């Protein structure tokens, strides 16, 4: 094998390796992120503290996944999950904190 040929093979191998890594999220990742976001949104809804921005994010995430853009889907679903978690934390915090705001 001459040097030139050897070089091009290793480039090909390198490309293959990074290619897999860069391919990023797949269907399974998107589905898992969306399911986690939906669970967080549901918990916020049960606490009656859901934000009205969360469900639209999940819808966008689903649309991105359906269009094959799994990275975008994961990104949006992660934002939605953050919101659901934040709303649950808000509900927990307000369960006591509201008392300090009452006019006396």
């Amino acid at each position, binding site marked *: 094998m001459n040097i030139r040929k050897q070089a091009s093979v290793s480039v090909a191998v390198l490309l293959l390796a990074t290619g897999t890594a860069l391919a990023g999220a797949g269907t399974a990742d998107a589905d898992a992120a969306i399911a986690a976001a939906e669970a967080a949104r549901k918990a916020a809804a049960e606490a009656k503290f859901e934000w009205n921005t*969360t*469900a639209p994010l999940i819808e966008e995430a689903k649309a991105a996944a359906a269009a094959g853009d799994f990275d975008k889907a994961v990104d949006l679903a992660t934002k939605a999950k953050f919101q659901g978690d934040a709303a649950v934390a808000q509900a927990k915090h307000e369960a006591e904190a509201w008392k300090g705001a*009452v006019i006396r």
Partner: protein
Amino acid sequence: MMKRLCIGLVCILMAAGVVSAAPEDDRQAFVNYFQKRFPNVGADAWVNGVYALDKASYEQWVQIEEFPPYELALGEGEELFNTPFANGKTYADCFPNGGVGIRQTYPYFDTGLGEVVTLELAINNCRVKNGEEPLGYKKGKIAALSGYMAYTSRGKVFDIEIPDDPRAMAAYENGKKFYYSKRGQLNFSCADCHVTNAGMQVRADKLSPALGHPTHFPVYRSKWGAMGTLHRRFDGCNKQVRAKPLPAQGDEYRNLEYFMTYMSNGLEVNGPGARK
């Protein structure tokens, strides 16, 4: 160190105080707060919402009230009110005093049902009892009907009672909690806007004071180009802070209305109203 301890103790005492505060103490404190903050507003002027705070828009509004935009709805409401159901009964059969001049007693805590009954809920309960379909809760016929019933009650004084029943007290407390809890992505409570920032400008609007909020509902709102109920307004105010609104006439909004209307006890019914 001592100081910090005292502050801690005061906090504990204050927290305990909230739980045991009687609704009437709450109401007194509420009224005092607004009267101190806006000493030029007359004791009975709170029913005018934001117009109680702003002379220029008050004068504009008085002119609007000369040819009130809710007049059509009043006519519609009166006709609906007097039209018998398929079984021959009418709304008058469901309400004390034939449904005339009774707005000031709503919402009330129904000890039989174990829940808060608003005027709109009572209207639909009446329909269902007589074999009719319930109406939608935010606009249209329900607002025309409750608007007409409010109109027959103008000048009566709000007199919301909290019966000696732990469930009634819990409903009141839940409404109060809702009012003071921050919600939504913007993390604002009702009180943040209508108590702390009452009189301040938010974009195109000046924020109205919480005292007197329910007295003129339902309301004709120019922005809606139509009548809407108090729960329609709750819906809008929840969305403003990017919170998902809760169902109109669900427990949460009915308890909220119970608390808010109790705070406005002693003020006159002046519904329906006209607003921007």
